[in-house]
């Protein structure tokens, strides 16, 4: 099993410590220009024996002790600072493994920051992130720390509203004025087009040489690579669960639903208790309905069923998807989403959830941060559960997807600095801890939760995902990994289904039709994966 549904044991597993040979295969960002075979082994080099000099004359990373190296970006090379002379990263890893320290030990070693950009000539680096201007996230703080450690590197962080991001990024890249690093989507469509146009730097050399391959789970690599090259570093793992108000449940004599029938019963009981919207759904925003679609389609078809459509000859109008869509409509028709979910805005829904006006909401852990802001200590009144299997006896597949991918501009004159910054932000122990504690992001790869102070609800959400991960995972956001044209018809179609203006059969047929058109144009995900020899 491979690909989406086959992504097993990622967070909290052995995947983060795979050893030297990394052969990651599965779906990836698809360049439009050619179709590639589903399985493809990408050749690599023996980095134990490779030793190449820094070729990029403009790199500020000049005083480098070359210990190991890797394949290069076109003519670029990579050189590294080694804090522990005479010990290569590989040896460090081997020693760590031998001592049985596992991935946590690796994280600790990384925490000592063995790779550091030394003082040198001034380097300017611009980063564009999706988010509201002025947003303060863990990233801002981590990047500030990076600049303190590397005073010669001046990082400018700019946030763009998500709707403005692509319309700004594309012309800027075309004009040669784009950011040096940007965080964007990793699905097919625009990211693939950007890669195809040569704007993104191949990060594979850094992936292998800096040991990212030891940390980034295979499933994440698959979605940020194509043609054997890593194009982006996935910044976080996102999953969706059902958050609920424990107090309201207790007051109404309800326990956590473990079967679909119990969920429906809870829905009815809460309605009778005066909660017009037992399960919050901001249908006006469209994407929250797509979260339900992702969940139910995945639950009905299973990881293999989804993979079969994404990378095989399966179809979105198969019976499993029709039934899953009918189940969503059933939930809506029973009034679980309130009298008119299409009139609801997701932000309002979540705010009302924290105010205790809505007992349940199916969303991701990113709402916890705002929740703590809203209710403070009252956060302990809330918890989460996995949505029960819609078909009795079927397994629970947790949802999981990448947040965004961080790309480096191929035209940036200091790629080593960009890679060093990515290394600092995503793979340094303290950075990962900061991300976790902020509640903004769950870093990719194995998590060392022992030294992190996390709210109980965050720990519960992690536990929920880990508990069922052995069953295989399904997409949390099908809309981000399917072609934009399919997302468009899905969004409108899902609204139409909830409104009773489109049958589940017609909806799945429409989606399949859009899917076929996109496939014909090579606008779908193709196999990804990166091999480090």
């Amino acid at each position, binding site marked *: 099993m491979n690909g989406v549904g086959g992504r097993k044991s990622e967070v909290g597993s052995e995947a983060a410590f795979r050893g030297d040979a990394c052969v990651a295969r599965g779906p990836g960002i698809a360049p*439009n220009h050619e179709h590639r075979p589903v399985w493809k082994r990408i050749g690599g080099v023996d980095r134990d024996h490779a030793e190449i000099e820094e070729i990029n004359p403009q790199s500020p990373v000049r005083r480098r002790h070359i210990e190991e190296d890797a394949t290069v970006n076109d003519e670029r090379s990579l050189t590294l600072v080694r804090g522990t002379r005479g010990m290569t990263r590989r040896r460090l890893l081997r020693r760590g493994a031998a001592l049985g320290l596992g991935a946590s030990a690796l994280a600790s070693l990384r925490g000592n920051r063995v790779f550091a950009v030394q003082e040198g000539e001034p380097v300017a680096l611009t980063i564009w992130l999706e988010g509201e201007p002025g947003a303060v996230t863990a990233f801002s703080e981590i990047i500030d720390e990076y600049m303190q450690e590397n005073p010669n590197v001046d990082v400018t962080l700019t946030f763009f509203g998500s709707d403005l991001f692509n319309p700004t990024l594309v012309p800027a890249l075309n004009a040669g004025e784009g950011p040096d690093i940007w965080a964007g989507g990793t699905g097919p469509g625009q990211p693939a087009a950007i890669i195809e146009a040569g704007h993104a730097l191949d990060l594979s050399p850094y992936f292998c040489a800096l040991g990212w391959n030891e940390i980034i789970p295979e499933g994440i690599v698959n979605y940020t690579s194509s043609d054997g090259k890593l194009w982006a570093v996935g910044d976080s793992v996102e999953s969706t669960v059902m958050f609920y108000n424990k107090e309201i449940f207790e007051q109404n004599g309800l326990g956590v639903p473990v079967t679909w029938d119990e969920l429906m019963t809870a829905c009815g009981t809460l309605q009778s208790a005066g909660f017009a919207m037992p399960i919050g759904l901001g249908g006006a925003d469209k994407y929250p309905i797509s979260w339900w679609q992702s969940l139910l389609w995945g639950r009905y078809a299973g990881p293999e069923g989804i993979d079969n459509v994404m990378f095989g000859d399966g179809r979105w109008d198969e019976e499993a998807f029709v039934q899953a869509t009918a189940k969503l409509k059933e939930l809506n028709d029973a009034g679980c989403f309130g009298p008119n979910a299409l*009139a*609801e805005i997701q932000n309002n829904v979540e705010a009302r959830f924290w105010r205790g006006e809505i007992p349940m909401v199916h969303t991701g852990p990113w709402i916890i941060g705002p929740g703590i802001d809203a209710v403070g200590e009252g956060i302990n009144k809330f918890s989460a559960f996995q949505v029960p299997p819609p078909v009795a006896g079927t397994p629970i597949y947790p949802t999981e997807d990448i947040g965004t991918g961080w790309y480096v501009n191929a035209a940036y004159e200091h790629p080593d600095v960009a890679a060093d910054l990515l290394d600092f932000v995503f793979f340094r122990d303290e950075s990962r801890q900061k991300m976790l504690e902020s509640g903004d992001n769950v870093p990719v790869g194995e998590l060392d939760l022992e030294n992190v102070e996390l709210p109980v609800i965050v720990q519960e959400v992690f536990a929920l995902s880990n508990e069922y991960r052995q069953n295989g995972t399904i997409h949390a956001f099908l809309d981000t990994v399917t072609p934009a044209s399919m997302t468009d018809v899905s969004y409108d179609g899902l609204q139409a289904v909830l409104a009773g203006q489109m049958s589940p059969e017609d909806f799945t047929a429409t989606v399949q039709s859009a899917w076929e058109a996109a496939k014909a144009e090579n606008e779908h995900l193709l196999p990804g994966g990166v091999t480090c020899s």
Partner: protein
Amino acid sequence: MAVQPYSRSIESLRAAQRGRSGLSRSVLQRYLVAYLFILPVLLLYVVFVLRPTLQTFWLAFYDWNGISVDREWVGLANFQRLLADPIFWQALQHSLIWTVVVVAFNLAVGLAAAALLAGNIRGRLLFQLGYFLPVVQASIVTAMIWRWIYAPTGVLNTGLETLGLGFLTRGWLGDFTVVLPALAIASSWMTFGLSVVILLAGMQGIDPTLYDAARVDGAGAGRMFFDITIPSLRNTITIVILLALVDAFKVFDIIWATTEGGPIRTTEVLSTYLFKEGFQQNQYGYGSAIAVALSLIILVASILNLTLRERGDD
């Protein structure tokens, strides 16, 4: 200082129009200076308005994802697709409905508000400020306000229930039958302050002796409004209509921030469709074709409006 006779001044202008041979050196210099003053703005206009506009027209003949180096010349294919695209026609229909609502609201409510303010009521400045505030407010802020107003548990529904009109409550943004006009009214609220100011300025320019004479003749307030105010505001009304029309056709932010064209495309207008096709679907060629169509529609509507006014003048 001797005043130049009017007829001589006209004569000198005519001489200038006759051509280079008839131009005196001083007149030439005067024109040159005028053109020099215009030149910087003209250059900015060419670079930042004209060139991108022409480029958009040009892009409409290509199949391009907006990023890749290769663009494929497809001739009129994007326009052919446009004519056969049911979503385009649906969006156009919505744009027209939207325009009618916005123009009618701006004109009707704007005229009524301006007439009230022209009567020197108490707190006039406060009212003027209140009407104009949404005009200077960021449109996204206004959109957010209306999202709250129209929410199922929002101000509008709560207010209706308080007034005993609970039967009128609904999920405004999710109700296919009312969502388009509801958002159009919200959008009008953003623009009608400007209409009020323009109309008020127009009303203040009307000769008060006309009203005095009408009063002497026994005309009431209504008669004076329809027989003096409205005819005197003809040009002003044309400007108000023109501004509201252009604004209505290119509306984007309030729809995008509230419904993104939903539910089920019931609020899809040309500009949101253009955005989706261009920037979300990466079909810059087709998106440009929609932009061209939108520009042509606004151009035709504006010319029609001006022509009708000219005919009225005749």
